[in-house]
């Protein structure tokens, strides 16, 4: 099974580290995967891309406009957005850096919110991609760690492996 991850465009990791972490490939935002939405009005690379942002209406229009995935900042749940993601067969990206980069009570809150988001996505049969979205190499994880973080959010081992392998691989 081959595993894939997505990191932020500021991450700047070396390819040898990616190999040691057990990934077949690590995609970088705006280099390998298009970023669309707030602050990313013009995608730098072609493809369906990942929509970012806090504006729910804008995210809904991006999803309806063909965004392949949505990364929800703040892990809030908006029914209409979730319905749009489900009906357009888009992917919901769960950025694990929200857990690994925070500390203390903020980390606990993020885990709680992301668990709730994952539970809701599962009920609506939305495909979920567990990605590190690391801004620095310090916040990157090996595939083993990414699986455990996915399990922390309520995924079972089988779905965690499927997500990190097949769903993350769709960004290739």
């Amino acid at each position: 099974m081959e595993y894939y991850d997505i990191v932020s465009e500021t991450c700047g990791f070396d390819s040898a580290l990616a190999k040691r972490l057990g990934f077949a490939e690590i995609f970088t935002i705006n280099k390998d995967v298009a970023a669309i939405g707030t602050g990313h009005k013009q995608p730098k690379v072609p493809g369906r891309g990942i929509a970012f942002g806090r504006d729910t209406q804008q995210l809904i229009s991006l999803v309806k406009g063909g965004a392949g995935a949505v990364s929800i900042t703040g892990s809030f749940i908006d029914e209409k957005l979730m319905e749009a993601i489900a009906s357009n067969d888009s992917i919901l990206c769960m950025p694990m850096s929200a857990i690994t980069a925070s500390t203390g009570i903020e980390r606990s809150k993020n885990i709680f919110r992301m668990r709730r988001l994952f539970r809701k996505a599962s009920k609506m049969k939305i495909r979920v991609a567990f990605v590190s979205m690391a801004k620095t190499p310090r916040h990157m994880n090996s595939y083993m760690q990414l699986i455990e973080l996915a399990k922390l959010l309520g995924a079972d081992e089988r779905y965690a492996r499927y997500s990190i392998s097949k769903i993350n691989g769709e960004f290739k």
Partner: protein
Amino acid sequence: MMRDKRRYILVESAEGIAGAEQDAFAEALYGELLKAVGEINYPSVNPKIMKFVDGKRFIIRSSLSGQDTLVLALSLIKSLNGKETAFYTLKSSGTIKTLDDLTENTV
């Protein structure tokens, strides 16, 4: 008496570990693991650094049932002794020899 089943994990540190600081590093890591895992779960993980492979990598042991918790806890530790760092779990095995062979081949 039944022996506890154990797992061995090869871990890479983002920051180098100086030879003279290995004992202090181990103590600090156990402290951070205790914080991440919690006092109640720590005994069931039972982590122990078995050896330092080189200036960045080491092999840590846990109970079989505590392996998942240890891998998760290592991903949450981002500073040690006030210095920013990270820990990547590279490989796990049921025997330390397998990891020894692996590290010998990759040095």
